[in-house]
């Protein structure tokens, strides 16, 4: 393996970075070694992304020094970091969808003849690199747009390898991969480590870290908390370091029920394209029903289908026992249905970022706050203040752009927007992604309060803990179908993981997950 006494390949000393008033990194010291896979752990907002952006030259630190291979360096832009052998695989893919796979792989330094790109040589090189990551099936002439997300991520990895990295940074780089590809990627990464590369691996999946890392560093609140060799800390200790307190009691208690509540939302045999088939479920008044399973098994599509966004949905939707056709969000919002959707990406689907907090909160319920055709401003302000106080949304001025708020407060604005409509059925699409722990806890409490007041909640989360902690029942989707329904004490991590992989529950007991 490696020794900690060896001079680090890259080291950061006293690095600080602020964005406006928000401190992203405070006086961070950090180092990574050659021939090692170094996992960086932390909640969203802990400063991991900023750390990576500084290392890769996307942003520049306010203070502090970077030393690479014993020399002080600065990276004014990504090209400079690239030239020094630092290559990143970002979570938001850095591929150009309209360009071919080969073009993407060779984008900055293609093979050239007479100064012009040698397409044939470029294609050969792309084929070699794709073969190296075990993706011979990808035709380098395909446009990236034509590839599914999991294949794109493999192209992204091939692209990074093609740049001969000395330090490879992977930011949630395996989140969209299929299980088979994950194994290939692990093998590649181990090979690279054995060849002497430094690898920085950002993830929030504990089992990935077990499988991959040699060293772990934990970040919290913009600070470097600790660095230790794999196995030196227990999982509980690591989690506690990440969240800074005991991970207990963050979930409100679940009510004890003797009988099923009256159904608010019933689905019969919902299907859409080849992504959803035969989905039947019921959500009762006051019930929180979770949607689980691996990412991309149709959970998002199901929520969008209910909300009238998808075209050509088959099957039957009943609201309070009455059959409804919902063909647009406007119809879903309508009183007769009373549905709300907290979308997946609040920045592009939930909010108008440059607009004020007020405008964002009132946009969905504006129609109900009018006097004739005029917005009743007094009523608008009163209701916004009420809801903002209820959700404890923190903002400077109600007229400030919502972009100036923290991620957690932005998400609260999205929720506030829908609460104002008086929705009785709330669909949530991974609502706590990128939100600090404190706000998460508030959201969990809010969901339970809503349920207690009779709202039906359908809740998709990529975080198993959340499903276990919040939901009265959990439905596991696999390949567009519900493969299992878990209830009460059956909602355990082992059961969720096993059903997600569509294994029988017995198989889950084998030492796998």
């Amino acid at each position, binding site marked *: 393996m490696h020794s900690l006494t060896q001079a680090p390949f890259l080291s950061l000393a006293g690095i600080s970075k602020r964005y406006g008033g928000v401190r992203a990194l405070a006086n961070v010291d950090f180092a990574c070694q050659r021939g090692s896979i170094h996992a960086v752990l932390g909640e969203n907002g802990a400063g991991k992304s900023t750390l990576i952006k500084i290392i890769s030259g*996307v*942003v520049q630190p306010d203070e502090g020094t970077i030393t690479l291979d014993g020399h002080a360096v600065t990276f004014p832009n990504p090209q400079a970091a690239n030239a020094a052998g630092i290559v990143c695989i*970002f979570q*938001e893919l*850095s591929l150009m969808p309209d360009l071919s796979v080969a073009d993407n792989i060779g984008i900055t330094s293609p093979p050239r003849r007479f100064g012009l790109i040698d397409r044939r040589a470029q294609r050969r090189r792309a084929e070699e690199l794709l073969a190296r990551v075990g993706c011979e099936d990808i035709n380098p002439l395909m446009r990236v747009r034509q590839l599914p997300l999991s294949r794109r991520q493999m192209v992204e990895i091939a692209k990074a390898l093609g740049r001969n990295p000395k330090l490879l940074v992977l930011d949630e780089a395996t989140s969209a991969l299929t299980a088979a590809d994950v194994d290939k990627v692990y093998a590649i990464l181990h090979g690279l480590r054995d060849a002497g590369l430094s690898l920085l691996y950002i993830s929030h999946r504990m089992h990935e870290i077990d499988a991959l890392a040699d060293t772990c560093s934990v970040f919290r609140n913009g600070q470097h908390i600790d660095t230790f060799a794999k196995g030196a800390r227990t999982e509980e200790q690591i989690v506690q370091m990440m969240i800074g307190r005991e991970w207990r009691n963050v979930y409100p208690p679940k009510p004890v029920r003797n009988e099923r509540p009256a159904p608010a939302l019933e689905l019969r045999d919902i299907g859409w394209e080849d992504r959803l088939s035969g989905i039947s479920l019921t959500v009762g008044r006051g019930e929180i029903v979770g949607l689980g399973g691996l990412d991309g098994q149709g959970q998002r599509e199901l929520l969008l289908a209910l*909300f009238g*966004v998808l075209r050509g949905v088959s099957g039957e939707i009943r609201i309070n026992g009455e059959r409804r056709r919902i063909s*647009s*969000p*406007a119809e*879903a*919002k*309508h009183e007769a249905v009373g549905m709300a*959707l907290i*979308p997946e990406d609040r920045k*592009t*689907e*939930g*909010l*108008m*970022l*440059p*607009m004020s907090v007020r*405008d964002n909160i*009132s*946009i*969905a319920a*504006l*129609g109900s706050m*009018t006097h004739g*055709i*005029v*917005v009743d401003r007094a009523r608008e302000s009163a209701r916004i203040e009420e809801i903002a106080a209820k959700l404890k949304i923190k903002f400077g001025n109600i*007229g400030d752009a919502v972009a100036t708020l923290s991620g957690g407060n932005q998400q609260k604005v999205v929720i506030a*927007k829908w609460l104002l*409509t008086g929705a009785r059925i709330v669909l949530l699409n991974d609502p706590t992604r990128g939100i600090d722990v404190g706000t998460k806890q508030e959201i969990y409490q809010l969901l339970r309060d809503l349920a207690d007041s009779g709202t039906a909640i359908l809740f998709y989360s990529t975080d198993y803990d959340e499903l276990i902690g919040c939901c009265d029942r959990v439905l596991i989707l696999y390949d567009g179908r519900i493969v299992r329904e878990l209830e009460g004490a059956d909602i355990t991590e082992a059961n969720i993981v096993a059903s997600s992989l569509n294994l029988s529950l017995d198989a889950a007991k084998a030492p796998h997950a």
Partner: protein
Amino acid sequence: MLKSIDRPTLIASSFIVIILLAGTVYTVITQGNATFIEPAYLLQQLKIAAFLGIVAAGMMMVILLGHIDLSVAWTIAASAMLATAVGGAWAIPVGLGVGLAVGLVNGIGVAFLRVPAMIFTLGVNAVLRGLMVMLTGGFAPQADATKFMIWLATGRPLGIANSVLVWAVISAALVFMLTRTPFGRYIYAVGNREAATYLSGINTRLVLIGSFVICSMCAALAGLLIAGYSSKAFQAMGDAYLLPAIAAVVVGGTNILGGQGRYSGTIVGTILIVLLQSVLSVAQMPEAGRQVIYGLVIIVMLLVYGRGSVVRA
């Protein structure tokens, strides 16, 4: 919304003062008078500005959505030509009807067919031009503007030209719409992020169509006024208004990508453009110099306050 005057409006206003002062210095030296600060001159300019102002007002609605309407040129001409051709009491309704029809077509093309507005309205413009050539045989229309149209454009029962009053009424209505009604709020919302607006349960197609209708009806109204002012409609009478209208909106601080901008800015932008053109022509600047200065002013104004942010992924 009634907060302090925003920066673009302020800068554009001070620029207007600079133009007037510079022009006055010039006329004092060369002609020995101060034409540019005489009320009669300014009122005359306002009267001319009203035509551009009404076109720009409508244009602003579609620019706020992040779209653009390149068909206003021939909407102006078509409205004026049909109105004068029909004549009588039906002149005004026919002209405005042209605006309504064009707006609906544009709106449907953009909202339902999802063709980029720039190219779709370009096509509509070509169709309108073709229609007018077909109807007029390519010659200047013979019919005169109706008395009412002339009165509407040049009459001054209240001491101020009616065209200015029309502009004022339109402006008041649009400010009311943008700041007080849900529709106004939806325009900004769609301009900022159509997906988020749609997912908020708002019929964004209606917002798009409504805005395009407002834009085209404003252009049609301007066409009626211009025809009244020159007592005739003529071929290509709208061509001189398209680009200045876009410039007026943008110089007034409305983001060309949509979602941001205040109506007051568009008024100031219109006055700025009209005064600039007028001062340069009074100063006997040749057309060549006028064009160059015109372009430079737009660029400089935007360099001062219209700069976008750097792309950082």
